[in-house]
């Protein structure tokens, strides 16, 4: 009698958990891809941990706090490693709706991943899309900051160069007139030192002293 009951229970369990059954999810692990040499073998202990994690996730859902590890059924474990799982209700006759399981797994995805040292790509729940982390957007885009800095530097440099150019030109145009002013002053004030007027010393241009010939003329051309 007991044997019959046992067979009945396992038969029902087998029916509940089947590939493509209602409310069943396929899980795929890529342990060797993720861990390389440190990969662990997938055995029944790891399966127990998996069942525990799923049960833990379901317990966080309101009014499912009584989910036990024995309510999570695994089947069709392949070499890949991949398998199907369902979560049954306490009566072990029906499986819990897929939507609840989906939301529970999504909320606790990170903890499930960490328990197995895997990530979203190496521990895949098919049909449960993972929430991707949005990229951190700073309030002011970084490129605008750098752009404004360089923009200001360039504008300052341009203005400096333009201003110095204008100043140079103004100095050049004022230059000859300033020289004229001083010479006018000299002509007005004839300074006398030792009775000799300094006038001849101040004349601009000067006279060419023929005694000193230029070098070229001294040498006869070849």
């Amino acid at each position: 009698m007991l044997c019959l009951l046992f067979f009945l229970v396992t038969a029902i369990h087998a029916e509940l958990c089947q590939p493509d059954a209602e409310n069943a999810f396929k899980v795929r692990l890529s342990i060797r891809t993720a861990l390389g040499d440190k990969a662990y073998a997938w055995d029944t202990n790891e399966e127990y941990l998996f069942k525990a994690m799923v049960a833990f996730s379901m317990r966080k859902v309101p009014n499912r706090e009584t989910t036990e590890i024995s309510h999570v059924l695994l089947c069709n474990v392949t070499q890949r490693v991949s398998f199907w799982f369902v979560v049954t209700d306490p009566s072990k006759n029906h499986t819990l709706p897929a939507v609840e399981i989906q939301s529970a797994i999504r909320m606790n995805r990170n903890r499930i991943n960490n328990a197995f040292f895997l990530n979203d790509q190496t521990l895949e729940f098919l049909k449960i899309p993972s929430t991707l982390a949005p990229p951190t957007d700073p309030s002011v885009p970084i490129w605008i900051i750098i752009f404004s800095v360089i923009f200001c530097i360039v504008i300052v440099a341009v203005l400096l160069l333009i201003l110095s150019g204008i100043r140079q030109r103004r100095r050049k145009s004022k230059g000859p007139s300033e020289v004229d002013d001083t010479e006018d002053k000299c002509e007005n004030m004839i300074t006398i030192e030792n009775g000799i007027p300094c006038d001849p010393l101040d004349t601009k241009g000067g006279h060419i002293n023929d005694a000193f010939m230029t070098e070229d003329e001294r040498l006869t051309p070849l």
Partner: protein
Amino acid sequence: MLIVEGMPLLYLELAVGQRMRQGSIGAWRTISPYLGGVGLASMVVSFFLSTYYNIINAWAFWYLFHSFQDPLPWSVCPLNDNHTGYDQECEKASSTQYFWYRKTLNISPSIQDSGRVQWEPALCLILAWLVVYLCILRGTESTGKVVYFTALLPYCVLIIYLVRGLTLHGATNGLAYMFTPKLEQLANPKAWINAATQIFFSLGLGFGSLIAFASYNEPSNNCQKHAIIVSLINSSTSVFASIVTFSIYGFKATFNYESCLNKVILLLTNSFDLEDGFLTASNLEQVKSYLESTFPGKYSEVLPQMKNCSLQSELATAVQGTGLSFIVYTEAIKNMEVSQLWSALYFFMLLMLGIGSMLGNTAAILTPLTDNKVISSHLPKEAISGLVCFVNCVIGLVFTMEAGNYWFDIFNEYAATLSLLLIVLVETIAVCYVYGLRRFESDLKAMTGRALNWYWKAMWAGVSPLLIISLFVFYLSDYILTGTLQYQAWDASQGQLVTKDYPPYALAVIGLLVASSIMCIPLVALGTFIMRCLKRGDTPPVA
């Protein structure tokens, strides 16, 4: 190509500039009054070039500013609206292509949909023009000092990249690909045409910038030595840069090939529930044939999704121009360690090169303007440069619109190619036959004190003009044979480029571009002829 075409023409332009001591318009007018149009045509081509070239600098600035983020913005796809997956366009194309076509250009599906001016590239364009203005502000003397920096820094960066590139995984694949001669490509005349055009552009012949710069040289300067040195350095730099390029290219191709293989392995592992880690690149083919024989039905289901990975096809995806810099290279850089550093370095080098080119172009435009007594007496040097930069910037805003990249491609392909060939041809014929080769030879001898080698004479008088004429004929026949001109448009729904025909007004713009520079030569010649006739009609009573 270099020895037969590049060096002689470079020497010719430097000698003309040094002898005539004026910008391109004045120089050619001195050679023959009817040929002032050559200088004007050079100036028009330089004007077109400077209008569209600076947008490349703007893009380099954009990428440079975005290099200071972790992770690099072109290495990850943005998420879609409900955060469950990546943006659809980005999935179909790659993240680097998405960043280029969507984030940088915000490209429209065809040249007809112009869209609005994008403010981000527009800002970068304004910055680029400000930097160029800063460098040319004080004239060629200050430009000379800036060029020390902009010309030498790329060499440093190239050396750093060479060391980094050669140590990358898969670099040897790229180098092997580069150095194995592809004989069937060499037999194709298109390859030789491209080589000739490349020599033209990299030496900067026909733009007038060489004449402009050479006019500032001392008359006794040995321009023959300079011409040879410059062209040799130019070509060896090209070879050096292509070694760096191909090693990084090999890295990218190997990386893509390996990730393609990994995708196939994952697909097979998942479909047939094989043990994880069982399939590797080495036993892939055996396992594939085993699976095909054992599970034929399932295998045929999976087969359409399996891509045929081939290293050769990855290497053979030849890209050139803006695509190479901004898509291929960024893809290679994002896979390196410390990618922000490499990215910033690379785009800084690109910026230096681009600004160096811009300085040459703007010098070609400014030198004739400042040589002109009328303009330079009314406006100071700074104002002329400012005006030129401002006008170019405003026109350049066209390229920041959504369809801007298509217009850029038009300018890039048609603004300079045919016109330059014709300009250089007329230049060579003018110096050799109109001015007289002997007269030019004696001028050079008086100026530099060195006699002209027979080689140069032979090249100038015979070989180079014939070569240019044949290139010209090839180009024209190529255009005529291909019929309607087509362009590559980005299709956002498919995530790849599609070929489309140019609309009539775009064809009109192309025709205008080519015609406006070429027509200068005969028009000015005609104008001078008419003025002379009129003058001759006036003067007989005086004589």
